[in-house]
């Protein structure tokens, strides 16, 4: 299984089309919507995390492009300032993908950037502001 975090930009005429549901159904992918909105220019913007086989991801995204949706890799990353993190645990229940998790034995909070989908919810929820967005 592989994961991809991508930004999908829909032109105006595709907003009503069920592109994503087809993508998920026909290519057997798991979808995690990180952010969705319609811009003032009526362009649709969807930031998603996709999980599936490497082949299905490749084909599915190629098909999505063919529909006229611009597909770009998600360029931003959330990083942790290790010196700033206090291991308090305020982020644990905020993170939707368990990229931030606690090791029960030591009670230390770990950050698995592979599981992070850059939703950025942890950034303002971290009291010492150890979580940062990098472009």
């Amino acid at each position, binding site marked *: 299984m592989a994961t991809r975090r991508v930004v999908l930009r829909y032109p105006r005429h595709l907003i009503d089309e069920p592109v994503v549901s087809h993508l998920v159904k026909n290519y057997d992918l798991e979808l995690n919507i990180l952010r969705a909105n319609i811009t003032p220019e009526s362009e649709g913007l969807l930031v998603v995390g996709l999980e599936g086989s490497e082949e299905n991801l490749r084909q599915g995204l190629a098909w999505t492009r063919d529909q006229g949706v611009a597909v770009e890799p998600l360029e931003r990353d959330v990083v942790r300032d290790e010196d700033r993190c*206090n*291991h*308090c*645990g*305020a*982020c*644990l*229940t*905020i993170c939707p993908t368990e990229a931030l998790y*606690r090791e*029960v034995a*030591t*009670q*230390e909070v770990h950050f698995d950037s592979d599981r992070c989908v850059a939703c950025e919810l942890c950034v*303002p*929820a971290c*009291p*010492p*502001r150890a979580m940062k967005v990098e472009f």
Partner: protein
Amino acid sequence: MAKTYQEINDRIRGGEVVVVTAEEMIDVVDEKGPAGAAAQVDVVTTGTFAPMCSSGALINFGHSTPRIRASEGWLNDVPAYGGLAAVDLYIGATAVVEGDPLNAQHPGEFRYGGGHVIEELVAGKDVRLRASGYGTDCYPRRELDTWINIQDLNECTLLNPRNCYQNYSVAVNLNEERDIYTYMGVLKRDLGNANYCSAGQLSPLLNDPYYRTIGIGSRIFLGGAEGYVFWPGTQHNPTAARAGNGVPKGGAGTLAVVGDMKQMDPQWMVGVSMYGYGVSLTVGIGTAIPILDEEMALYTAVKDEDIVAPIVDYSRGYPYNEGGPLGYVDYKRLRSGSIQINGREVPTGSLSSYPKARQIAGILKDWIQRGEFLLSEPVQQIPSADSGVSFKPLRERPVQPEVS
């Protein structure tokens, strides 16, 4: 076979003292029983590292030429209290930087405030001081704008009216419609999470539930340096309900603490931003508990599973004083990652750092083993369970318009 402070301090000076952390003491008492543990162990160290809002710094920045009576002051644009003598200012941990949008667009981010100023002072960073006065014959100057550094200040004293809460509530949100933003962190709607805030079995006052060995004059670890307890903390509530082992079942005792910020380490004095709530200061505190007798051995062996905290709804219960706790849960369960509330599995988060608490207890242990930290017997006890002292709500008395 009771021990005295004097005997323990002699053993510290002689390099033969036996010190363990409150975590390690659990195993010692399990193995040797309270009597055996009391005979073997001289001191148990504790630690806690959590946001403590009732904190602040008292600074004296020295007299300028010509002199000013700073009736108002700002440090890095965070307002400080100037209603003291000419060049004394008190900056509180929760003061927010001027011009911050606060919660105008809810939830506000609260990026900077008094807690951050305190951290930067401790870190030795230059801080901008602005002050204004109304001008008097003896203090003619009206404006001041200068860089200051902690090393140049006459005094820079951490003076915290309330720290080290003995136990605390577990915060949840029963509102089904919206997330709430509190001093206990972001609480997701409909029991989406539960946040707690205590070092539990490592916490200073949970290891001495009746304050037998901690009181006015107790020397402590404060922000990486030596500090002292100077009074019971505000809202000190020793008569709170207790479990059979004497441990309070919710917020109870508190401590007022003081220390020299020039000796502190910014690692243990961290400015924090609580999303949608405000700013605060995370303070590192540790205590050294003398194992005077069996009873103290037993108290310091308290375990997370023996300490319970009340689950409180912060959408209505806390702000409007409605209803009681939704139930009680112990810290072992809280640290496991999820708890049961109303038959539902609720994930847990926390604001108090257990790994940092453990580190503080370890540092203090090390200081004592190296003979660098002596225990001090309280010159006065703080009120305990038998004192009748309790934490009262405000009884509002309506103000009638004056009739002339």
